[in-house]
């Protein structure tokens, strides 16, 4: 019936190179891809290549550099601060990711129960992840204050400690503090994503296992976890990626201090490149993150994917 109100001239064969180009799949596809492609090529692919190139030069702010080969990398190789930042990044990423995974999964399992006002809980739990990181990190800065920390005050009130804890002034305290803030911010993402995965698991599987006499713990490890593994792999890959390249939290809470104890590779790269003016060296640090990043992604992705066939799936 819609045929009748079709304009007649539309049926006419269309001529001209332009209109034939527009009508073809590839022509129109090219045209539709153009805006996104221009943006991504100019501001993503090109800078990525330029970053690698800058790492081989001695460019400084306001002064074009010349090619110096691997000098930046040789310099970094002998730089204990760089290796400290690599160590910090590893510790930060590993500890924070494990905690985010464990606590996030726990929270997802709790939210998957039959609860009153479940949607309300889900909504407020996502808040830490919605609010700008820099602004919530400022709240943590105040919570971790060396004199007026509310945590110290409560612990002192309870008689557990005698003096305020120097959260951000002592190397290991500072590391744990920034990890805590990172975990706080990351739990909602992990929990809500895993909750979405949990909701796709049919309850009948759990019931069948229960009838066969499986304990709750067995049901969790033998039924729920294997079915959840693919989504865990993706969620944790993202989580590891964002933790490894984190910048904001550290920049707000410690700026890499005390004595570089919390410098991550991203913050060190910024420190050297922007306030320090050594664009080439900063770019080299950023480039040095790429292999670690690829390794972290491959590890968390394939490490978790492999479980699928280990646990009796098809292979």
């Amino acid at each position: 019936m819609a045929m009748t109100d079709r304009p007649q001239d539309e049926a006419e064969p269309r001529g001209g190179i332009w209109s034939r180009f527009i009508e073809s799949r590839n022509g129109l596809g090219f045209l539709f891809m153009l805006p996104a492609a221009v943006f991504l090529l100019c501001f993503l692919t090109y800078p990525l290549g330029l970053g690698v190139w800058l790492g081989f030069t001695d460019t400084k702010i306001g002064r074009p550099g010349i090619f110096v080969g691997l000098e930046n990398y040789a310099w970094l190789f002998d730089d204990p601060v760089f290796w400290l930042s690599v160590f910090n990044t590893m510790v930060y990423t590993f500890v924070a990711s494990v905690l985010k995974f464990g606590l996030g999964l726990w929270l997802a399992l709790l939210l998957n129960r039959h609860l009153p006002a479940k949607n309300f809980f889900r909504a407020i739990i996502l808040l830490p992840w919605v609010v700008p990181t820099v602004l919530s990190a400022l709240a943590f800065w105040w919570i971790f204050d060396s004199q007026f920390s509310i945590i110290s005050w409560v612990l002192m009130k309870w008689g557990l400690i005698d003096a305020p804890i120097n959260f951000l002034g002592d190397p290991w305290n500072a590391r744990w503090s920034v990890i805590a803030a990172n975990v706080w911010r990351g739990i909602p993402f992990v929990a809500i994503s895993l909750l979405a995965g949990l909701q796709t698991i049919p309850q009948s599987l759990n019931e069948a296992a229960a009838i066969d006499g499986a304990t709750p713990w067995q049901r969790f490890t033998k039924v729920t976890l294997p079915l959840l593994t693919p989504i865990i792999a993706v969620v944790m890959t993202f989580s590891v990626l964002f933790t490894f390249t984190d910048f904001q939290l550290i920049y707000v809470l410690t700026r890499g201090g005390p004595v570089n104890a919390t410098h991550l590779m991203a913050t060190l790269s910024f420190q050297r490149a922007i306030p320090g003016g050594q664009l080439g060296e900063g770019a080299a640090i950023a480039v040095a993150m790429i292999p670690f990043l690829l390794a972290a992604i491959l590890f968390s992705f394939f490490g978790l994917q492999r479980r699928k066939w280990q646990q009796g799936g098809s292979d």
Partner: protein
Amino acid sequence: MSKDTEDHTVGMEQFETLPRRILTVYLPLAVFVFVLLFPFYWMAITAVKPNYQLTDYDNYSPFWVVGATLEHVKYLLFETSYPGWLWNTMIVAVASTFISLAASVFAAYAIERLRFTGARITGLLIFLAYLVPPSILFIPLAFIVFQVGIFDSKLALILTYPTFLIPFCTWLLMGYFRSIPYELEESALVDGATRWQILTKVVLPLAVPGLISAGIFAFTLSWNEFIYALTFISSSENKTIPVGVLTELVRGDIYEWGALMSGALLGSLPVVILYSFFVDYYVSSMTGAVKE
């Protein structure tokens, strides 16, 4: 909001006793909620505390406030550049969201429905682009921004934010377009509609939830962005909220916690309000990006 509570878990929980349930479910959940929300409470209570109560924990309970004040907010709004930063953040977020959405709709439609030669590879490349973190791009981008001559301008941010927004929005919209039945497009084609008409009259109206998800998510990401804004902007009047609060309100050794916390609170409000209206869209865009 409550339509997806088709509950799979009711089955066996009737056998649980109430005390056990309190111990294994409600208590841990209460601890989680408390820890996740406490920093916001602390932020809010500090923002309205008069200065003399701020650090005097002995005479005034730190968890409560007597005679709440708006002096910190007044100070922010009338004696600092805070309103300007709010305005900048708004302009940058709206403009970059708009640009990204427009570019992503076309790209996602081309990849998912036009199926041009190499569409699959393009889709994969878009996903990989999403994985490139800003912390390895900001140095070369700063270099480019400087050379193009847009350093220290809002344009620098409007043009660079789409680098992380377009991959995300395209990926999300691809999922939405996939869920629209081919038959609808085919019958429109048979009726003589052009591709443009199909896109604007058939596909886009059906993809409105996806557009809203991608839009509010992109807006939030731009509002929260920090490292580019910190690197590309140097003058106070061009700063965005996160950069302005951190670099201009933190001065010397005496921290004005009241002003800082009200700055953080006010700067969070726009995204929190947006979030509260579109919770389900947020959840679907977050999980949608992961589930593919």
